[in-house]
């Protein structure tokens, strides 16, 4: 049994009789502790802080282009200060507008909600909740973070190019992204975008493989798969999705790089641009879209599933009630994950795809609604007759469920090819994915941060600031994205610098103003969060060991971070994670480490 051996050698290395352990701690220098750390807790914090900084950047970008959309003829002198030649006289340049939405989307989807979300919480919780000393490979884990960091650095560097960063949209469809003649951002900016993505894919694969191996091999004694908290299930399924789909993005990016730099014609054919015909023949731009969305759709679940996992755990813990339908939750995640690989064509209904093939994708796409509905019902059933402790974390988790419903329902419209004809690429799509993917996932991330902050930093975040942050953000998300549906239904295309060229769109400027005001309010609310987060790291109230009275085993480890997590032996697990408010038991929770022999009064038939 190889995994037994790994476990044992790990134990011996860390616990011993306490002596070896201390010695080990003293070897740590600043560099090995904070920078080239191989400890999952530190790596998780590195991911989190990097992601927060990237999110701030992407959010600032969104406020800038929201200003443009609301007041397309006003001058904002501060823009010139920030953007220089890209905002002469305080008017945002149209090519910079496209660059901003592109980088905003890329950062949010990949760096914040993929790297940041999985990187933070898979790293923190997989070893802690499975009962492992650390990840299977600390070294690969460290590499995963540094690939991520390098990737962020390259992406940020591309902002300073004279031709501007990539600006073909976050999906970077060729030929636009392949030809510098087509748009300035497709020069060096696009090259850096591709390099950054390749580094990012490296990071995602290193991380993902590590997560899966850890969950399979390093669970503590008694931690059967069916006793794992839903967080771990979600992270594992997510990691598998990533391992299967990111290589395809890698291939797509590589072929694009070849077309750009080595004159191949994978995606290019019959092009006449800049007054001359190009030599490329025989390729197809549609091929790129197939490859991209083969990753791209699983990607939205790579973003969403960890958030749903975090929400499941938080909702169950804070409502002091077992999650309803534990197995149905796992089953629906598996079904969603499987289906996510066979629906990519719904992004391509109007590319000239064979209508019959379109029908197949309609079918598979609408099927996803079934497991999604099951999840929602399970969440609602969990809240029924609960005893909800209103921590900021569960507020965000409830917000997530609300967004998941709202955005999921509009997805049913977009998945219907006949309806997609008229709303494809309009603001309806922007509204839909911001709610279902952007906001849900961000709320899952917030829920996770508020809930596990004491586990990460040994201190509590300020709850009042948390409430303010939640209610303002919740209000502004609906304030921004609910009205956006109507702009889409009015026929307004996305990725438009201004809606001034067609007279028929003049009315919607009112809606755009309203949206921008909510966006500014939302941005302000995030500043409250940032302040609270950094203040609490150093000044927050000290946390007790198990502040939320939770069952999962990460809370049995001491508040201080130890190399190897538990000072003595790793705890043994005796039950699932959701024995909350079990009748016959005096407390309203029974930690996973409590054997049934100690809870005779509350055991159900079959639990010895």
């Amino acid at each position, binding site marked *: 049994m190889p995994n037994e051996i790994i476990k044992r050698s790990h134990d011996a290395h860390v616990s011993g009789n306490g002596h070896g352990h201390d010695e080990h701690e003293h070897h740590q220098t600043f560099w090995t502790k904070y920078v080239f750390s191989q400890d999952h807790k530190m790596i998780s914090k590195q991911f989190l802080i990097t992601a927060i900084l990237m999110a701030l950047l992407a959010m600032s970008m969104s406020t800038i282009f929201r200003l443009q959309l609301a007041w397309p003829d006003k001058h904002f002198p501060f823009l010139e200060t920030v953007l220089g030649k890209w905002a002469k006289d305080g008017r945002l340049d149209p090519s910079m507008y496209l660059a901003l939405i592109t980088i905003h989307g890329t950062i949010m989807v990949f760096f914040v909600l993929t790297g940041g979300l999985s990187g933070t919480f898979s790293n923190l919780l997989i070893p802690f909740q499975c009962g492992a000393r650390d990840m299977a490979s600390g070294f690969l884990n460290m590499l995963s973070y540094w690939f991520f960091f390098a990737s962020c650095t390259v992406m940020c560097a591309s902002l300073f190019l004279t031709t501007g960063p990539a600006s073909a949209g976050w999906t970077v469809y060729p030929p636009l992204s392949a030809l510098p003649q087509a748009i300035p951002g497709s020069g060096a900016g696009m090259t850096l975008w591709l390099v950054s993505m390749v580094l990012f894919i490296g990071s995602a694969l290193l991380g993902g493989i590590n997560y899966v191996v850890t969950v399979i091999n390093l669970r503590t004694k008694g931690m059967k798969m069916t006793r794992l908290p839903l967080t771990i299930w979600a992270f594992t399924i997510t990691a598998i999705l990533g391992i299967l789909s990111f290589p395809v993005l890698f291939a797509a990016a590589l072929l694009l790089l070849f077309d750009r730099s080595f004159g191949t014609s994978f995606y290019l054919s019959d092009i006449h641009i800049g007054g001359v015909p190009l030599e490329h023949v025989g390729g197809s731009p549609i091929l790129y879209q197939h490859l991209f969305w083969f990753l791209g759709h699983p990607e939205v679940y790579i973003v969403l599933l960890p958030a749903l996992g975090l929400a499941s755990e938080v909702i169950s813990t804070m409502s002091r009630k077992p999650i309803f339908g534990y197995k149905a939750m796992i089953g629906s995640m598996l079904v969603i994950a499987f289906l996510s690989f066979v629906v990519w064509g719904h992004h391509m209904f109007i590319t*000239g795809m064979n209508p019959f093939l379109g029908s197949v994708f309609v079918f598979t796409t609408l099927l996803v609604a079934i497991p999604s509905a099951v999840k929602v019902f399970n969440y609602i059933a969990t809240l029924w007759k609960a005893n909800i402790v209103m921590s900021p974390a569960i507020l965000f988790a409830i917000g997530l469920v609300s967004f998941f419903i709202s955005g999921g329902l509009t997805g049913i419209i977009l998945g219907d090819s006949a309806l997609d004809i008229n709303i494809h690429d309009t603001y309806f799509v922007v509204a839909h994915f911001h709610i279902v993917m952007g906001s849900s996932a961000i709320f899952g991330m917030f829920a996770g941060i508020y809930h596990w902050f004491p586990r990460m930093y040994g201190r509590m975040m300020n709850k009042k600031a948390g409430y303010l942050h939640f209610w303002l953000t919740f209000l502004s998300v609906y304030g921004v994205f609910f009205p956006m549906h109507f702009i889409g239904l009015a026929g307004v295309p996305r990725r438009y610098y201004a809606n001034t060229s067609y007279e028929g769109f003049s009315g919607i400027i009112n809606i755009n103003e309203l949206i921008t005001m909510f966006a500014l309010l939302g941005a302000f609310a995030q500043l409250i969060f940032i302040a609270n987060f950094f203040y609490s790291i150093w000044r927050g109230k000290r946390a007790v060991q198990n502040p939320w009275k939770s069952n999962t085993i990460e809370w049995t480890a001491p508040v201080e971070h130890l190399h190897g997590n538990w000072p003595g032996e790793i705890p043994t697990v005796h039950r699932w994670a959701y024995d909350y408010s079990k009748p016959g038991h005096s407390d309203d929770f029974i930690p996973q480490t409590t054997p049934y022999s100690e809870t005779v009064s509350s055991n159900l038939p079959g639990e010895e």
Partner: protein
Amino acid sequence: MINLLIFVVVVLVIIVVVRVVRVMELATELSGEDDSIINRKDNRFNGAMMIIFLVLGVGAMVYFTLDAKKYLLPLSASKHGVIIDKLLDVNWVLLVVVFLVTQFLLFYYAFRYHHRKESKAYFYPINHTLEVVWTIIPTIVLGGMIVYGLNVWNNITKPAPKGAMLIEIYGKQFDWTVRYAGADNILGKSNFRLITDDNPLGVDSTDKASKDDIIAKELHLPVGAKILLKLHSRDVIHSAYLPHFRTQMNCVPGMTTEFFFEPTITTRQMREYTKNDKFDYVLLCNKICGVAHYTMKMNVVAEEPEQFNKWVTGQSLVFPKPAAPAPAPEKATASITKP
């Protein structure tokens, strides 16, 4: 202006809420200790906020939806658009019901079951019947929606009838050109290597079918006609979007795509219907195609067939007959095609 007012009101409400919280907090401090991390006031405040948010939120959504009607697209100006709109309406009815019920339960339970020291949650980990029921019901409903939706889709995408009028829509950065097939209703062949300033679509002048092809900078559509759009791009992907006709199809370099539709309402009728005598149909580009993507559009006129015929005969041919002697450009193009 009204937006500014709304904004100010929102900000005021927030300030009030913050003050109220502060007062409640002081009151707790005075009324004795509650040392839990999340105390009674927190639970009550957030529980109450759930209900407030639900009521005000749904109210605001209803108000906004009614108010936003004036911005939405008017009735469909094409035949297939009518069945799309109907499908959309049926979808909306269903979705709004599901939305209201689920959101209500979510917020109501969050309010109703907020923490109380005296009470204990009901240990209820699973109910198989429920799980089965709420898997099967969505399956049936979605099954219905899939069948209905695909029915509409197949209707729209079935092969165009023979003899449908051909119109080429040709996209390039950053404008549109249209080509009518002329009397023979065949579009002459084209090739991107033949593109010149005088021949922006790269039409092959050696193809007889091109002789009567007509080129225009405005899209005119005869109502009641069966129209098959043939879409092309010469540089990057564009998307020909005719929102009022519920019509959209990408223009992809190296490929010809097509879309069949039947316009039904003339521009003049639509002006009357919308009570807006400046109303015009439009062809927009709806796929990011470069810096001036947002300006890429073409005016569209739907009119009675007689007016259309009058208009189309006034347009110029792709290869104007009498003017310059043809051979010179033809030689030039021939030399390009050879290799």
